């Protein structure tokens, strides 16, 4: 993000709050998601004078501000910015901060704080934000003097976006907001205790290349590191040179187009069977910007034991954390992949690639066909997802909530463009969907943003419909309504003797709610109406809620039960 200050500014005797505005402009910030309150009022007062330059979106709950900033960051590749008040404002933001930490999303969250003289006294709306957020941020810092504003903001942005991205919290004491300083823009180019990207070791690259060159059955795992490193082209060059098939993690989806021949599909618990089976058959496994989450690996004791493992990552603490690697290549994959590609011999693995087909066919026959091509009975989640995807020419941004809707969306949405998936992977936060879709649409105004959300998750951040209304944010919300906390019900059906403890839900008139917020809405229960409503929804760029009453007791298959060997797959 380029500085939006002209460089000629020379502001004498301004408040810390105004210095914050200038510092944000200096970081190139255009959009802020936030919510005011007592301890942040000086900042909001300063913002009043900067409304032209800084687009502040008033959300309806601070959790919404953080998820919106995440959605914004994920589609733009920039840092998402939030401003919230102290105490409850800050604690409401915790879920999004934790989510951003798990999913490596760059955020700067500025919280109001009581004045320095009141710190530690249990003052009204005082919470020890720095310590509460310490384990779920890359950095959290309390600004206690106006003099420190420019330094802290510059450092916050540097930390949030460099290396493995993540959230930063700035706890802004009220006295620092009102204290007077002479403003000098500050820049952070270096922190002596933090080297975001370390030099790749050439010996490791050579070792990895030797392994890949002699491999008969190489297999690559693509994670979000590829998208974060903007290394999509480098990935393809790598895969194509040695003809290596690849699977993707939930957050790695859309780094390769869905129909790209070397893209063999999703990994993990609800992934494709071919990718999971081949993980345990390949001879060299190349993990690229991913962290071997347990939802991907299943039982570690039986995970890819036959393979030599190469791990490329920017974060050294990921090496050997879950899976023991044979060769660890540290660095941004944008730099390390080309170095590796250069040392590869051009190769083909026709038989190995062809061997995926048998499993793809089996999955199609037992799972996919039923999910996408049923013509009678209830509408299924998968077919809704595929129809919306295709109606948007497979060019839309997919945002999901959490649950069956998320897994179905990941499985059946199709992608032709990168940076097109916004979902809560590591934390699995219900309620992520609506605000994240808002942020995604604000960040990518010219693209169609389709949110798939369950009836449960929709009601966790339903108040953000107010934000959609106020700012006319044209998100397409597809509510996959099964009147259940579906994913929990699925586990109850499979592992808890169908004892549906607290999972059925009595739901309101969702369309009525949307209309009360001035949002167009339609509800469908049959296939003919579904098709016309999708067309209606996508006909313009306005917000739309499409409630689809789907099969109440639908199941997401394939499924590897938690903690099982990744090849122990339930197909029905």
């Amino acid at each position: 993000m380029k500085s939006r200050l002209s460089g000629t500014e020379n502001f004498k005797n301004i408040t810390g709050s105004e210095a914050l505005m200038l510092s944000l402009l200096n970081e190139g910030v255009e959009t802020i998601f936030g919510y005011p309150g007592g301890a942040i009022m000086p900042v909001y007062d300063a913002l009043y004078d900067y409304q032209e330059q800084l687009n502040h979106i008033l959300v309806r709950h601070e959790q919404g501000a953080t998820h919106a900033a995440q959605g914004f960051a994920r589609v733009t590749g920039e840092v998402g910015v939030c401003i919230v008040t102290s105490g409850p404002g800050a604690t409401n933001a915790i879920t999004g901060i934790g989510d951003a930490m798990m999913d490596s999303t760059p955020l700067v969250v500025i919280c109001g704080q009581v004045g320095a003289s009141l710190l530690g006294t249990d003052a009204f709306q005082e919470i020890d934000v720095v310590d509460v957020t310490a384990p779920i941020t890359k950095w959290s810092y309390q600004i206690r003097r106006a003099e420190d504003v420019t330094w802290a903001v510059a450092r916050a942005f540097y930390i949030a976006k460099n290396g493995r991205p993540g959230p930063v919290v700035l706890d802004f004491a009220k006295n620092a907001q009102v204290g007077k300083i002479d403003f000098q823009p500050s820049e952070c180019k270096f922190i002596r205790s933090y080297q975001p990207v370390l030099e790749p070791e050439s010996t490791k690259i050579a070792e990895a290349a030797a392994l890949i060159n002699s491999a008969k059955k190489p297999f690559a795992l693509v994670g979000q590191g590829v998208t974060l490193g903007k290394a999509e082209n480098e990935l393809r060059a790598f895969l194509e040179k040695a003809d290596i098939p690849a699977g993707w993690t939930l957050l790695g989806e859309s780094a390769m187009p869905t129909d790209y021949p070397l893209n063999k599909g999703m990994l993990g618990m609800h992934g494709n069977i071919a990718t999971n089976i081949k993980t345990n058959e390949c001879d060299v496994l190349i993990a690229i910007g991913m962290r071997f989450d347990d939802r991907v690996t299943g039982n570690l004791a039986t995970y890819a034991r036959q393979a030599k493992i190469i791990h490329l990552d920017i974060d050294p603490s990921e090496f050997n954390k879950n899976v023991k690697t044979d060769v660890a290549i540290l660095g941004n994959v944008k730099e390390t992949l080309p170095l590796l590609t250069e040392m590869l011999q051009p190769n083909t693995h026709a038989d190995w690639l062809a061997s995926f087909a048998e499993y793809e066919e089996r999955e199609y026959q037992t799972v996919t066909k039923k999910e996408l091509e049923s013509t009678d009975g209830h509408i299924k989640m998968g077919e809704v997802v595929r129809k919306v995807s295709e109606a948007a020419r497979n060019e839309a941004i997919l945002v999901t909530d959490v649950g069956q809707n998320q897994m179905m969306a990941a499985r059946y949405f199709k992608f032709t463009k990168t940076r097109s998936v916004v979902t809560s992977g590591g934390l699995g936060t219900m309620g992520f969907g609506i605000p994240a879709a808002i942020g995604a649409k604000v960040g990518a105004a010219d693209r169609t943003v389709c949110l798939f959300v369950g009836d449960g998750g929709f009601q966790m951040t339903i108040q953000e419909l107010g934000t959609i209304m106020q700012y006319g944010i044209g998100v397409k919300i597809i509510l996959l309504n099964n009147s259940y906390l579906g994913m929990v019900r699925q586990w109850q059906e499979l592992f808890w003797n169908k004892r549906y403890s607290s999972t059925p839900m009595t739901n309101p008139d969702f369309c009525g709610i949307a209309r009360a917020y001035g949002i167009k809405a339609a509800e469908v229960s049959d296939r003919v109406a579904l098709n016309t409503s999708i067309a209606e929804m996508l006909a313009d760029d306005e917000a739309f809620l499409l409630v689809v009453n789907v099969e109440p007791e639908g199941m997401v298959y394939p499924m590897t039960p938690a903690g099982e060997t990744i090849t122990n797959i339930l197909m029905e």
Partner: protein
Amino acid sequence: MEQKLYTITIFSENTPGLLNQITIIFTRRQINIETLSVSPSAIEGIHKFTITAFASEDLIQKVVQQIDKRIDILKAYYNVDEELVHQEIALYKIATPELLKLGSVEGLIRKYDIKILELNETFTVFEKTGHHAETQQLFKELSETVGVLQFIRSGRVAITRSKVERLSDMLAEIEKKCKTTS
């Protein structure tokens, strides 16, 4: 996996809240901290933490990587005892009349190489430096003979036996980079 005592050395910026950041990493991995000692290092503005803990090497490695990753940490590494020269200091408060009942105070002082820090008619304070086992041995002997009114032992301090001073080199390097970029 084999549990062993590891010494973790951490160099950090002197920013508030760092101790909390470090200790929660141990807590998350369910490791108890045995000893902890913090002080300014030889380099101005940089603090040094020395922590000991029992764990498997695999786990200690992960914890150290996690600590090293924190922004304000300059460097974290771990060692086993054989790689270190290490020391602890212990203070013992004893009732002077009890002490005087001992046949030979001199024998005790020589045996344990004790330093006397305070002596008055009510109490005496001994200081002993050494390895944990040594300070413990004295504690045991005093407890069984004259009794101990108060006892305190510091955390371990340690210096590596390595012939190359990688850390100083690294810090010098960082300092150089710091000067050229800012």
